[in-house]
């Protein structure tokens, strides 16, 4: 412990990042450049998010880290351990207990509250990048609010697929001004960014940008009048906890086309099962069904 400064980064670096964060909060959706540091992990593993978390973390904070909604996958586990080791803060998997939640893409299903901070890991912060490769040009377009190009992307989707086929990194307009890429978050979560009581911070390590959505800020998904934004819908409930209206992951279960759909938010799924909700493929449900069948015969 004594070999690291609290939360790994030195205090000067944290001050620099905090200044960028303050500026980002003052101009919702605007990408603030910052002097991103080398972190002990490869780019693409959340170097931006980790730096933001390190800069805002205090000794009293309780940290939760999720990777696609799950607390128990590699990225989540290693980042959680990283802060346990370098900051010694308390960690949790329960959304309600956490004060800082670092996420790779999902927003937890449980409603967030005031005082919580959601930190997103962002690979490519510029929403117009794939249509306009010049950074000088995209900056100018942001400055002059020239966002026609963003709709060209959606137009292309409809022309090719008959509907807006962008399902993640779906562009949004923040506070009626800046168009923002909500990191590769599934568009399912876009409506939950709108008017959210928690502070949302976005860190892109390789691209050296920080942006933010302050609490209770409007976040509107871009769309056409005759092709309005639609949230992803699932035709079935979670196979383990029977939750509806949640984001589901597809899990392949065998090599004969078998698959199950389960909550991507593991914390939410565990809580529901603990509260007695039973999905159709939950182990004990299957065992019970098998027992009933055997006894019935």
């Amino acid at each position, binding site marked *: 412990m004594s070999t690291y400064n609290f939360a790994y980064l030195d205090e000067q670096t944290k001050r620099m990042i905090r200044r960028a964060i303050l500026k980002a909060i003052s101009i919702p959706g605007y990408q603030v450049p910052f002097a991103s540091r080398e972190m002990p992990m490869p780019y693409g593993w959340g170097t931006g998010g980790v730096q933001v978390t390190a800069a805002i973390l205090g000794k009293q904070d309780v940290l939760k880290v999720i990777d696609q909604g799950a607390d128990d996958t590699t990225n989540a586990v290693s980042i959680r351990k990283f802060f346990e080791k370098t900051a010694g803060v308390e960690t949790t998997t329960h959304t309600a207990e956490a004060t800082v939640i670092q996420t790779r893409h999902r927003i937890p299903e449980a409603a967030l509250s005031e005082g919580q901070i959601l930190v997103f890991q962002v690979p490519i912060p510029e929403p117009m990048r794939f249509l306009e490769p010049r950074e000088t040009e995209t900056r100018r377009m942001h400055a002059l609010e*020239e966002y026609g190009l963003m709709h*060209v992307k959606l*137009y*292309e989707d409809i*022309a090719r697929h008959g509907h807006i086929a962008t399902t993640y990194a779906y562009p949004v307009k923040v506070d009626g001004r800046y168009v923002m890429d909500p990191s590769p978050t599934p568009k399912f979560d876009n409506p939950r960014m709108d008017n959210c009581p928690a502070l949302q911070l976005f860190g892109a390590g390789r691209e050296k940008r920080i942006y933010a959505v302050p609490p209770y800020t409007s976040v509107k998904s871009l769309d056409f*009048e*005759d092709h309005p934004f639609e949230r992803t819908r699932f035709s079935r409930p979670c196979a383990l906890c029977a939750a509806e209206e949640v984001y589901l992951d597809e899990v392949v279960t065998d090599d004969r086309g078998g698959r199950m759909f389960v909550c991507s938010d593991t914390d939410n799924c565990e809580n529901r099962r603990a509260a007695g909700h039973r999905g159709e493929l939950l182990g004990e449900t299957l065992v019970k069904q098998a027992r009933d069948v055997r006894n019935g015969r």
Partner: protein
Amino acid sequence: MVAETPLLSVAGLTRYYGARVGCENVGFDLYEGEVLAVVGESGSGKSTLLSVLSTQLEPTGGSVQYRMRDGKMRDVFALGEAERRLLLRTDWGFVHQDASHGLRMSVSAGGNVGERLMAVGWRHYGNIRTEAGDWLKRVEIALDRMDDKPRQFSGGMRQRLQIARNLVTRPRLVFMDEPTGGLDVSVQARLLDLIRGLVADLGLAVVIVTHDLAVARLLSHRIMVMKGGTVIETGLTDQVLDDPREPYTQLLVSSVLQV
């Protein structure tokens, strides 16, 4: 009468590249519906002039005044950047010699035409598509190619697509830089025919840069001959081409192959 004030008024326009001359002391007035051809050999300053006129390059001296839609003459270099960019994508058009500079090659033909509409606030997919389709028809691109990318188009089609993309917001002034360059003659002829029709229908003012005197004769009302960065002769197209005064213009006219 509105038509009595020019649409574009250029005076003393000069651009130096360090000590070298790009163009020097160019002045002309362009009225609505008028086509002005700028001719001259390579290196005569035609393209520099066009870049300065279309605000891609800052002039070293001189002024470019444009009559905005509200009827007021404004110096285009005194406009704010937002205003100037709005002007460029609504009231002006620019047709590049190389279509890949004027098009988004990875976006479908419909998207290319629709971009300017979306940029000025169109947010109804159906309307954008109908309007883009209308323009593709006007430039003779079949509707079943609407969702293909310009990469899959021939050179002539790309050039026509570029024209549709520029005209969709009904600009009043279009700059063209060798629009027929690099196309074979039959395709050139059809393209020229199309441009001539559109210019007449829409009452466009056009500044067209070309080294091809046949293009100038077919399209333009007036002609400006440039040499070494300066204008050496101006006049009505048929007058200049049939009865050239300057020795250089005479040389230029007599250099055209007669078949």
